[in-house]
């Protein structure tokens, strides 16, 4: 009987520690430079950089294991900000910059399998087993991770519509030769 109680107590302690560790591990980061890099990354969590998400990529950059131009969703802006932060040279984004997209579920086709829901890194999909699923548009990062798992191909990525209020003036196209800033 005593062994049983001891075993349970040890187990409880072990998992308690694990939980505590998880909480610490994903809330506070000990490395400030990783945080600074992570703050620049777009948090799309798409894995296009070759890492499991933005934070792992930030860690890899901090360790010098990854270049600063591997994040297509971040585009030129992120490369420039990283170059600035780390004192490295900016360079074109690996794989080119893509249009911003948002996922869309064809609700007639959705069978409610929850596979996309499990794939979404930011919980932007609303649904339950055997119920139709919906994307919360404002929270979707456009990472496309939900597209592949869908067994009935009902998820498509649609470009985010630019409205007059979110439109940006184009960078002036002039014919002068590039010069150095003073």
């Amino acid at each position, binding site marked *: 009987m005593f062994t049983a109680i001891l075993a349970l107590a040890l187990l409880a302690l072990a998992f308690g520690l694990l939980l505590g560790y*998880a909480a610490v591990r994903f809330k506070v980061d000990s490395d400030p430079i990783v945080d600074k890099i992570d703050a620049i990354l777009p*948090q799309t969590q798409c894995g296009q950089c070759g890492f499991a998400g933005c934070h792992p990529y930030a860690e890899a950059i901090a360790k010098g294991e990854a270049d600063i131009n591997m994040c297509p969703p971040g585009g030129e802006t992120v490369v420039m900000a990283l170059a600035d932060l780390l004192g490295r040279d900016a360079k074109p984004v690996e794989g080119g910059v893509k249009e911003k997209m948002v996922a869309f579920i064809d609700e007639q086709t959705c069978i409610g399998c929850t596979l996309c829901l499990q794939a979404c890194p930011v919980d932007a999909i609303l649904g339950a087993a055997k119920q139709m699923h919906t994307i919360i548009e404002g929270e979707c990062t456009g990472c496309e991770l939900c597209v592949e798992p869908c067994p009935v191909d009902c998820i498509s990525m649609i470009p985010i519509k630019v409205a007059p209020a979110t439109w940006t*003036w184009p960078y002036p196209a002039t014919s002068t030769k590039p010069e150095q800033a003073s």
Partner: protein
Amino acid sequence: MTKPTSTTTAAARKLWQFHGGLHLPDHKSLSCEQPIQPAVLPKRLVLPLQQHIGAPAKPIVEVGERVRKGQTIAQPDGFVSAALHAPTSGTVVAIEERAVPHPSGLTAPCIVLESDGEDRWVELQPHGNWTTLDASELRNLIREAGIVGLGGAGFPSFIKLNPGARTEIDTLILNAAECEPYITCDDRLMRERADEVIAGARIMRHALHARRVVIGIEDNKPEAHAALRDALARVDRSDIELVQVPTRYPTGGEKQLIKVLTGKEVPSQGLPIDINIVCHNVATAAAVHRAVEHGEPLISRIVTVTGRGVATPRNLEVLIGTPVDDLLRQCGGTTPTLSRLVLGGPLMGITLPHSGLPITKTGNCILALAPGEFGQHGPVRNCIRCGECARACPANLLPQQLYWHARAKDFDKVQDYNLFDCIECGCCAYVCPANLPLVQYYRYAKTAIWAQARDKKKAELARERHDFRTERQEREKAERAAKLAKKKAALEESPAADSEEAKKAAIKAAMERAKAKREAAGVEPKNTDNLTADQQRQIDEAEARRATEKKNESANERE
């Protein structure tokens, strides 16, 4: 300046000067001599739900609904927003995305109204005796009338008439400068409807509890000045001061006019209200008068149609939503040499992609430019660092530095140089000998910075949600593992502890049951009912023997 007098400031009034600015050919005589003409009632009006700064209005009519002139067709959505009214009577034929007059050339939600030609008003509720209304009632009337700043960006006027509980307004400035070349809509308004402007100024002053009102007008509009002076004399208002200021672009800039009239500087990225001043355009004042004293919502405005690209330039009173096409046609059509259609003035306006777009509340001027008509049109060269731009900048900025940093997309630096104090007046680009599209760079940088701020906000939300999800997954994993372990442990516990004995006991019990069965079956044949005592004794003896024999047997076996 024809008559060097004004009702209240016969003595030389001290004026200040802002840094920079330009003397420009004003081209105002093209359009300023013809009286305002009402624009022909259009067949179709397109009314963008957003004609102001803030949130788009929310439609409260349905497709197919018949509306009267002046009826509210869209309500303000939130605090910073403005209502929209039917500019004429007719039928709502669509509520859909339509091309809007915006530099992006994009579409936005609009209400499309087909006029029935009758132009029938809703019943209006005038408040002739507005002095009995308090400030908040006045603001409400102005809000419901959909009035926004008619001079520039279109900020909802009722907000700029609300100083807040603790701020005392010293001066209400009425902006009558109209400093940008070509534009004469305010000039004509003041000449023809000076009484409305003064009446509006008084209402605004009442709403603000402003200590005084100062009307600032450039000295290239002597007729308008005279008209205002006469109107002031008629109502005998000595607390409204009419001041002529030197003509210099961009005196009509809010901060610049405040500097000229009061010598005060609005702090960087601040508002006039920070220094107890509120500034409104003269046309807005007239609209306030109409809204309060006639109950008329803002459904029309005066638009200057001008430039050498149009046959007969003039000012038209235009219903909001009228297509630019109609206006050009009424002014004799465009000339074959038309090179560019601009909404607004030549320095601050935006190029229109085509003339099918509607006039909105902020559309003060349609400028049809002939080739080479205004400004420099040379090839773009490299910056020669001449510093002309800095000398011209009325906001006291360093346009050259802004240019370099905007061009290098260094958005931190460009903000360090106070990009957001730039009023996009175009003085720097006008004087630049290298013909650099400087303002384009600043507009690009400003909108790119806003976009970045939006992205950043979105990224923060995504990070939060991702962290939350990761945490939840870890927790669920841990919980699942804990549950599993507990279940296993629990399963083992009850038999678990003394499993050996339990097993043995179970086996023993089973064996015993089997043995009993066996014995009952044959080894102990029983015919023992109704036994006599003798019989019983014999049986017992036999049993005892057997038992001993058995014992011996087993003893032998063991040996």
